């Protein structure tokens, strides 16, 4: 029987997309030629097979395709294209043949827009997610800190092991001891961050500020771009007032005037000379996301360096070039031991109760975020692998459909290398398209991440798509090509050649190929399980965080800070100001209550404010608690009512407590009650040690614990005293936090609140006004960031895995059409067919899920520190993941299964 010449020709010319009537003519004429050649060969005595081989092999389909596309297309759309014959003969023209491969590949991809679109979108998601997260890794973890020789910078803390205070501040006398006696440092400096009222010419504006020693600027190694560092004179007590400002403030407040150095400004109403401007992009504090605008020198008195109990300095040192951090630690240990034996002052740094801690600055800044960021990188790597597996699976299906083409090309002498190159070229085109879209997606994604969660990780200002990131994208793209483009090559085994040539069709591909595709889908499902388990755990931990009882009610509450310049508000004035402001605020429409606290920030982002106290009748024991409170607080009478803090025992502050000769009273939290008293603390007395004479305060109430420093942190002990009773005794506390409880949306009251402050003193700026629910949200920025991203990545992974299993099942059904037809002809019911297909799908899904669960148990362990009060093997999460994947895969199998039941036996049996 003669070969079907028309079909052979048509298959070879399909990609030319000739107009149908023209194609019929050309196909027929070429078929005629082949047939004539075949018959000539038969007449010359060749066997049928030999004659067919001679006719087919004597034909150069690539050349024909090229020549036809030139002859048949309008001249204008014709591009110059060297004939492949020429290329093969001249051998050296590699580039041209690469271009030709590109054209050939591009034409194939354009011909299959559905396939191309899915592959490109899949790759874009994978590459885009990786590019975005690598930008974060690069900006946060990899890039050196923006200081001179940053690897020599060391962060120095103190520690109170008995009070469980790690990474604690250092007091000025302690800092001066270290600076004077430690020899490891080229320069060691201290700072303390705050806010100031800054005015250049007109109205004061709130500005972030930091007090620093001049040695800090030296230690960081970045000098002012205009002007100079502070002088020793400016560091002396009562020395000239000087300030260095940020580049941003110079632009905002002074319009970037060139003659800025030497100009006068006011800092907290005191006149002050601008002596320097820092360069743009100067990041301080290290890793911080809000840059400091105003720098003021500390004016420590070395002779009388003050209270050894006042710990508020942050310290950074630059090691001498030859000194390691271990040597610096050893030196510090020796110094501490010496100071202890000299016993030159009470409360010295010492190795037992109050040692120094040192960490490389980079580790200190990014260490806490490292695990979170690397977890994300792991997650996106999984997404990319799933994407590659999906594209590989798609390419395999296509490769099977192209067997005849491959066979003919191999038979015509296309080298295996040339074929491989063709696959790689097609993969290359897909990946380039995917990478271009992916980088776009990454850019968009980064913008969204930074907008949604600017404070979720340190150094967000340094996150950007730069060359290092693009190099990474290129690297993973090349890797991706090799992962998925080689899959079809695995199908090109020599032995299949003759088989394919003899008209083997789509429906008879080998079991090996099916195995390979199933393997890919199993991999995808397993990876998706791991990702879903990780994000499920994170989401549940985040949900649990949201359920934590904060101890106060953040809804319908607005908080802000006011800074009272000590010159304008000496001791009695600042209490009066506070009382008048509270009266005004309480009288505002829509305001239910207002209160003041001396906490510089309000919960749940309130830094620890620890203080030694004395407890009446308390017997200290060596391993027992120190007489100390974690959160020292002074509040106005309505504080508890305004924040919604619940009473446990006794009473709140009352109007009677505010009288001139009223009994001195205190309220404590439950943690404090538990720590220091076995029974009822009501009626017990504490001395807060605010003056030389003992002042005993009687505990009148116990309130529930408030989450001061973070939703996920233990509450700590807290002592509340009343403003009217404390302010007259203590030094000026010039930073006041206010809370206003409103009837409705608190942000609607913001303007009225600002106006109330302005009425009292137009020169006072208001800091950080925001609804307390936003502050709570800010405190959950990192877990929310992780939950959102992991959730998004696993949603992508799930969708890709679903598409993967759908593809395999649909393909398998289309291959088994004939078999299904036979079964149905022999009496199988639709439900049997449905069951058969579904069971095949469930088997694949089951294997994938099982492998994935094993992987998840092993891998989610790295997340343990990221999960709030959760086991990494939380059974609820794992059960939910299994159920979700089971449902999704079943749905993905159901569509092809239903299609299988619609097979008409007669059609199927005719289906060859």
């Amino acid at each position: 029987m003669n070969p079907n010449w028309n079909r052979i020709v048509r298959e070879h010319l399909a990609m030319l997309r000739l107009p149908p009537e023209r194609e019929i003519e050309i196909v027929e004429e070429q078929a005629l030629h082949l047939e004539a050649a075949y018959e000539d060969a038969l007449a010359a005595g060749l066997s049928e097979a030999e004659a067919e081989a001679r006719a087919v092999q004597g034909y150069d389909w690539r050349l024909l395709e090229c020549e036809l596309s030139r002859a048949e297309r309008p001249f204008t759309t014709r591009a110059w294209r060297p004939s492949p014959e020429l290329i093969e003969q001249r051998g050296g023209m590699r580039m041209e043949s690469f271009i030709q491969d590109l054209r050939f590949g591009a034409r194939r991809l354009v011909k299959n827009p559905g396939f191309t679109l899915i592959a490109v979108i899949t790759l874009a998601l994978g590459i885009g997610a990786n590019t975005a997260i690598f930008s974060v890794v690069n900006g946060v973890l990899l890039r050196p800190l923006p200081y001179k020789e940053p690897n020599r910078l060391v962060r120095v803390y103190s520690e109170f092991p008995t009070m469980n205070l790690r990474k604690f501040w250092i007091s000025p006398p302690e800092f001066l001891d270290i600076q004077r006696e430690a020899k490891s440092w080229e320069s060691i400096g201290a700072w303390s961050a705050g806010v100031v009222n800054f005015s250049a010419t007109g109205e004061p504006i709130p500005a972030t500020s930091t007090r620093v020693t001049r040695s800090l600027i030296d230690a960081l190694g970045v000098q002012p771009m205009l002007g100079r560092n502070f002088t020793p004179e400016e560091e002396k007590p009562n020395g000239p007032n000087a300030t260095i400002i940020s580049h941003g403030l110079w632009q905002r407040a002074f319009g970037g005037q060139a003659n800025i150095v030497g100009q006068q400004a006011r800092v907290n109403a005191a006149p002050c000379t601008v002596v320097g401007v820092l360069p743009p992009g100067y990041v301080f504090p290290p890793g911080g996301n809000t840059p400091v605008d105003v720098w003021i020198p500390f004016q420590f008195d070395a002779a009388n360096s003050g209270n050894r109990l006042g710990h508020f300095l942050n310290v950074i040192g630059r090691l001498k070039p030859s000194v390691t951090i271990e040597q610096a630690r050893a030196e510090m240990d020796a110094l501490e031991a010496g100071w202890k034996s000299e016993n030159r002052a009470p409360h010295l740094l010492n190795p037992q109760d109050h040692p120094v801690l040192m960490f490389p600055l980079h580790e200190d800044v990014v260490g806490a975020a490292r695990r979170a960021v690397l977890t994300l990188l792991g997650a996106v790597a999984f997404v990319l692998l799933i994407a590659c597996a999906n594209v590989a699976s798609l390419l395999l299906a296509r490769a099977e459909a192209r067997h005849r083409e491959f066979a003919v090309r191999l038979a015509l002498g296309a080298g295996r290398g040339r074929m491989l190159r063709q696959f790689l070229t097609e993969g290359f085109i897909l990946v380039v398209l995917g990478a271009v879209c992916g980088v776009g997606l990454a850019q968009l994604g980064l913008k969204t991440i930074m907008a949604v969660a600017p404070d979720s990780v340190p150094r967000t200002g340094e996150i950007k798509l730069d060359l290092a990131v693009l190099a990474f994208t290129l690297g993973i793209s090349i890797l991706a090509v090799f992962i998925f483009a080689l899959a079809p090559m695995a199908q090109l085994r020599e032995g299949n050649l003759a088989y394919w040539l003899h008209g083997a069709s789509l429906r008879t591909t080998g079991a090996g190929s099916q195995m390979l595709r199933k393997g890919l889908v199993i991999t995808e499902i397993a990876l998706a399980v791991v990702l879903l388990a990780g994000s499920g755990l994170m989401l549940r931990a985040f949900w649990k965080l949201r359920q934590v009882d904060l101890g106060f009610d953040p809804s319908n509450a607005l908080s802000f800070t006011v800074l009272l310049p000590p010159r304008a508000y000496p001791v009695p004035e600042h209490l009066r100001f506070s009382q008048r402001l509270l009266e005004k605020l309480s009288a505002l429409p829509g305001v239910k209550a207002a209160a003041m606290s001396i906490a510089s920030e309000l919960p749940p982002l309130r830094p620890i404010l620890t203080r030694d106290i004395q407890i009446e009748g308390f017997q200290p024991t060596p391993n027992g608690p120190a007489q100390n409170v974690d959160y020292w607080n002074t509040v106005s009478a309505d504080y508890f009512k305004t924040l919604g803090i619940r009473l446990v025992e006794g009473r709140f502050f009352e109007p009677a407590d505010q009288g001139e000769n009223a009994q001195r009273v205190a309220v404590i939290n439950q943690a404090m009650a538990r720590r220091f008293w076995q029974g009822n603390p009501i009626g017990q007395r504490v001395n807060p040690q605010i003056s030389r004479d003992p002042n005993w305060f009687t505990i009148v109430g116990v309130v529930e614990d408030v989450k001061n420093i973070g939703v996920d942190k233990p509450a700590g002990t807290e002592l509340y005293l009343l403003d009217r009773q404390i302010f007259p005794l203590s030094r000026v506390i010039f930073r006041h936090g206010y809370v206003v409880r409103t009837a409705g949306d608190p942000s609607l009251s913001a303007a009225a609140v600002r106006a109330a402050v302005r009425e009292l003193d137009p020169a006072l700026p208001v800091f950080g006004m925001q609804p307390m629910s936003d502050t709570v949200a800010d405190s959950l920025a990192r877990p929310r960031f992780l939950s959102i991203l992991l959730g998004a990545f696993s949603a992508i992974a799930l969708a890709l895995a679903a598409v993967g299993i759908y593809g395999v099942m649909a393909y398998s059904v289309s291959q088994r059409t004939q078999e299904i037809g036979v079964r149905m002809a022999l009496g199988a019911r639709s439900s049997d067919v449905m069951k058969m297909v579904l069971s095949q799908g469930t088997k694949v899904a089951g294997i994938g899920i099982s492998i994935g669960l094993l992987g998840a148990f092993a891998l989610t362990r790295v997340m343990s520190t990221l999960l709030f009060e959760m086991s990494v093997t939380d059974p609820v999460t794992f059960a939910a993941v299994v159920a979700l994947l089971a449902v999704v895969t079943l749905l993905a199998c159901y569509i092809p299964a239903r299609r299988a039941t619609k097979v008409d036996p007669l059609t199927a049996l005719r289906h060859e």
Partner: protein
Amino acid sequence: MLDKEVKRGSTEMLILALVEDRPRHGYEIAKLIEERSDGVLQFHPASLYPLLYRMEKRGLIKGAWIEKAGQRRRRFYKLMPEGRKVLNEQRQTWSDFFAALDRVAKINPA
């Protein structure tokens, strides 16, 4: 083997010459070129047909399907007036060219 360039330049003339006396189909044209040149001129069908289509577009030849009982229908190409003109021109050009070659290099084109 003749140089490729010469072969390419002469191909059109060969085809025109072969369909000068009667219409022929593509396979026949290819066979005749090979036979009459004793195998010196070989023509790959992959370039022959596209060339035929181009010549047809330029109006040098015209193809028509001829059907015979019990056979595939075949496309025969016949020479058009424009083709005859081009053929004569090319014959003249080649004749001049060979004469010149002969004068210089003593080649007899026979």
